[in-house]
């Protein structure tokens, strides 16, 4: 039977209501009162594994093997027993009729003609393709792997392990998210390492720089509010008047991508008034006086005000307050580094923190994120290549994987010819909707011989795949999760059995290994045994044990633990740069072709033809392409919009609710207008998301322009997502 995608989903939804084991009817309680007639409710500990600051501790409520509801874990000291709106929708994800339930194949790719196949057939097809490519090209390099942040559970690094166990492959390397800021802090401090966010209660002054906590890290708000109750002032600097900015004592609508200029203006004024913490800066850093000279000769308040659009008296006000109200905390968001000068802007803000002595202090810090609690074993990730594997000879002469740029994925896949890329394996990743230049991505997928995707939903990437393998949700798996923001670590228990025929990345790897070795003995090194709990247990090591003060992972079943670290990062003054000091002057940056000092680097100017900047920030109702497709979210937020300032809208004859075509040379999208003065007349805003049964995708107009930094610590520069210029018309 040939079905279109829509029919397929509709058909299975109807079937689920009648025949399937699990559906919403089983879940729905009587709406008037809780139904107590069933087996006693069991609870399990889980951790939300999404790419999110908050990485919430969760308690799942399970009755008769069915997930009844999900709440926050009160033993988690940062998320404190509460979830964000996304966290409360999980039953709709787990029991969604739209879930990928079985291994399925699509013939031909992109047709929507899906047929259910057995796990054995899926593994047989995949293993034979891998072996055929290997014999055709003499290596497994034609197989390209792309995984990022769909599930940040540590056991999910088994997806990488799948690849390393079949040989050397082509790998999408990098992170689209935050690399420019990571490199900035790597040049300055040696790595990224933020204060405990709970320590923000001790701040006397707070600057949220391009950070929208209300949508992306809502559990930090109570700590910020506590600081405010104690008298701290909250300043939010953002081109968009976000929900967070709406709460600020002072909101500054800065000219996009000029954050460094504002920080330089502040620095100059602080210098002129001698509010500099000379002792801290000179004792802890190298190159500080060199930067002071730069400030004196190159920076004026006039210039800073002109660049940023921020009046001079406001620059003076925040400079004075930031430098004299101690400790003062800054939180640098990820949006502000998604520019061609984004990393450099973060370096300048870092220097501002150093000059005022706010680094290494409780209640202070230039806070961006950290990876201090991620010292797991990565046992599932590390497998030796099978004997005789041929790899790619890198510039250092070493044989290994062939790394290509995750942030220019479509281009880099197509550019390989020795050997070419013929097969893609995607896990925890949806480039079909999340990568820049969607048209190029679609073309590249079409050029492949074979595409395998592991996922839970028929998203854009799955729609372009030959085989989809059904992924478990985190309630169906054992795992362990850390956060890149707070200091807590939690164990994730299997609360319910895997639904339908879904499997975790590690279980898939074990199956593939069995099949490959049956077809060609010795062709895959991935272990073929281990229970999900055993795999999670193997991620623990003495370092993690001592960081958490436990001797066995099972102690985490009693509650998540907070890492034993000081509330202030860098409190010991032991920086991890080559000089072991803060490097205001960074030789490493210079060696990498960047300015050695945190000096101003020009922002990208709008081309004449496309004078409007299109921002596509993180949405409120989803995390990238996750959550928004769920029925509860579709009720809460049924359709995408573009926020347009009334003055700009009038210029283009656009009224509230009109359909607007947004376009440039790369592509176009059509979306409904919402007129609002929360954005400026130069910037329109449309939040990235994957809506159910919709082709809406902000990335059709987005060029894969690299940001200035990222290569040093993450392998590749980031994407300047927010340097995207378009024009609009009434559609």
């Amino acid at each position, binding site marked *: 039977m040939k079905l279109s995608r829509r029919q397929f989903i509709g058909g299975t939804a109807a079937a689920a209501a009648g025949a399937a084991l699990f559906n919403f009817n089983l879940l729905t309680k009587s709406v008037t009162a809780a139904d107590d007639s069933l087996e006693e409710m069991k609870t399990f500990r889980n951790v939300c594994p999404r790419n999110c600051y908050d990485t919430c501790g969760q308690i799942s409520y399970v009755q008769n093997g069915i997930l009844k509801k999900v709440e926050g874990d009160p033993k988690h000291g940062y998320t404190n027993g509460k979830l964000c709106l996304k966290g409360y929708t999980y039953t709709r994800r787990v029991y969604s009729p739209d879930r990928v339930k079985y291994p399925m194949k699509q013939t031909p790719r992109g047709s929507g003609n899906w047929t259910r196949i057995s796990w054995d057939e899926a593994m047989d097809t995949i293993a034979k393709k891998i072996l055929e490519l290997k014999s055709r090209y003499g290596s497994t390099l034609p197989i390209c792997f792309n995984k990022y942040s769909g599930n940040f559970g540590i056991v999910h690094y088994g997806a990488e392990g799948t690849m390393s166990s079949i040989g050397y492959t082509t790998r999408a390397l990098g992170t689209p998210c935050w690399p420019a800021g990571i490199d900035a802090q790597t040049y300055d401090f040696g790595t990224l390492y933020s204060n405990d966010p709970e320590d923000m209660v001790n701040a006397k002054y707070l600057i949220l720089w391009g950070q929208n906590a*209300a949508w992306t890290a809502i559990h930090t708000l109570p700590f910020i509010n506590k600081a405010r109750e104690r008298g701290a002032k909250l300043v939010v600097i953002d081109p968009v008047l976000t*929900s967070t900015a709406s709460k600020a004592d002072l909101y500054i609508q800065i000219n996009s991508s000029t954050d460094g200029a504002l920080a330089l203006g502040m620095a100059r004024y602080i210098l002129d008034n001698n509010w500099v913490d000379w002792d801290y800066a000179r004792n802890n850093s190298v190159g500080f006086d060199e930067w002071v000279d730069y400030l004196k000769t190159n920076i004026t308040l006039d210039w800073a005000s002109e660049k940023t659009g921020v009046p001079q008296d406001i620059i003076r006000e925040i400079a004075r307050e930031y430098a004299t109200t101690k400790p003062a905390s800054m939180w640098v968001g990820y949006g502000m580094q998604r520019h061609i000068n984004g990393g450099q802007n973060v370096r300048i803000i870092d220097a501002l923190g150093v000059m005022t002595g706010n680094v290494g202090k409780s209640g202070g810090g230039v806070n961006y994120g950290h990876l201090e609690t991620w010292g797991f074993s990565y046992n599932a990730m590390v497998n030796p290549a099978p004997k005789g594997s041929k790899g790619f000879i890198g510039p250092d002469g070493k044989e290994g994987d062939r790394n290509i740029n995750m942030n220019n994925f479509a281009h880099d896949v197509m550019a390989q010819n020795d050997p070419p890329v013929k097969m893609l394996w995607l896990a925890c990743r949806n480039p079909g909707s999340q990568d820049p230049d969607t048209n190029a991505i679609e073309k590249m997928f079409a050029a492949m011989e074979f595409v395998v995707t592991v996922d839970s939903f028929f998203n854009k990437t799955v729609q372009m795949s030959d085989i989809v393998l059904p992924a478990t949700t985190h309630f169906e798996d054992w795992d362990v999760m850390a956060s890149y923001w707070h200091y807590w670590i939690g164990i994730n228990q299997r609360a319910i059995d895997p639904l339908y025929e879904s499997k975790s990345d590690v279980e898939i790897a074990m199956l593939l290994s069995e099949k490959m070795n049956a077809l060609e003995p010795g062709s895959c090194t991935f272990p073929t045994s281990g229970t999900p709990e055993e795999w999670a247990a193997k991620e623990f090591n003495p370092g993690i044990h001592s960081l958490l003060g436990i001797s066995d992972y099972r102690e985490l079943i009693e509650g998540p633990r907070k890492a034993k670290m000081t509330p202030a990062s860098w409190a010991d003054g032991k920086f991890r740069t080559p000089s072991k000091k803060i490097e205001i002057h960074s030789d490493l940056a210079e060696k990498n072709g960047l300015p050695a000092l945190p000096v101003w680097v020009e922002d990208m100017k709008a081309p004449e033809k496309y004078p409007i900047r299109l921002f596509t920030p993180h949405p409120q109702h989803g995390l990238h392409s996750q959550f928004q497709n769920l029925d509860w979210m579709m009720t809460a937020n049924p359709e995408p919009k573009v926020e347009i300032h009334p003055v700009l809208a009038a210029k283009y004859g656009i009224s509230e609710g009109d359909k607007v075509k947004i376009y440039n040379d790369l592509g176009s999208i059509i979306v409904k207008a919402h007129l609002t003065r929360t954005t400026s007349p130069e910037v329109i805003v449309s939040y990235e998301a994957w809506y159910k049964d919709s082709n809406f995708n902000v990335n059709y107009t987005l060029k894969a322009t690299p940001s200035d930094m990222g290569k040093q610590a993450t392998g590749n520069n980031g994407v300047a997502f927010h340097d995207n210029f378009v024009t609009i018309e009434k559609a």
Partner: protein
Amino acid sequence: MTKQLGFLHNSEKCVGCQGCEMACKNEYQTDAAPRWRQVFQLREEDYSLPTRMFFSMACNHCANPECLRVCPVKAYTKREDGIVVHDHDRCIGCRLCLMACPYDRPQFNPAQKKVEKCNLCYQRIDKGEKPACVAACIPEALQLVEINEALDQRMGVLKTLPGLPSPDITQPAIRFIGPKQGKQIRRD
């Protein structure tokens, strides 16, 4: 009636996150369409500065509940503590209450062809717990309160917000604290 329970919503603290709305759905595993609790955005033009401002509203457990008055099968009752309870089993789905309620709070469930609404988590309240929405609100913008003279005399407590129907119609058991706006440096 000895007391009147209700909600106090603080727009100064609320960030419009819709956590309360989803926590309610999570607690009762409702179908997609009915929104027992709903977060609304206040109109920019009603305030001096354009800001993202919100309020969250479920059933207001009115002192003078129109829903109860018009319901032909007596599906609505008002408890001693003021909670207006809707009995889903009695409901025949005639939707008269939908028309009567000035706040659109009885929600029609098209799949079940019946009405459902917030019952103020009375089963949780009877156990001494907070309503699910109140328990979920991260900035503590939403509170369960007793509506009384003392509350109405507190500084900043409002009986209505711009754009809402007059509270005289049903005397809703909800009070508001209006949004506070900071200083803005704008580009327009």
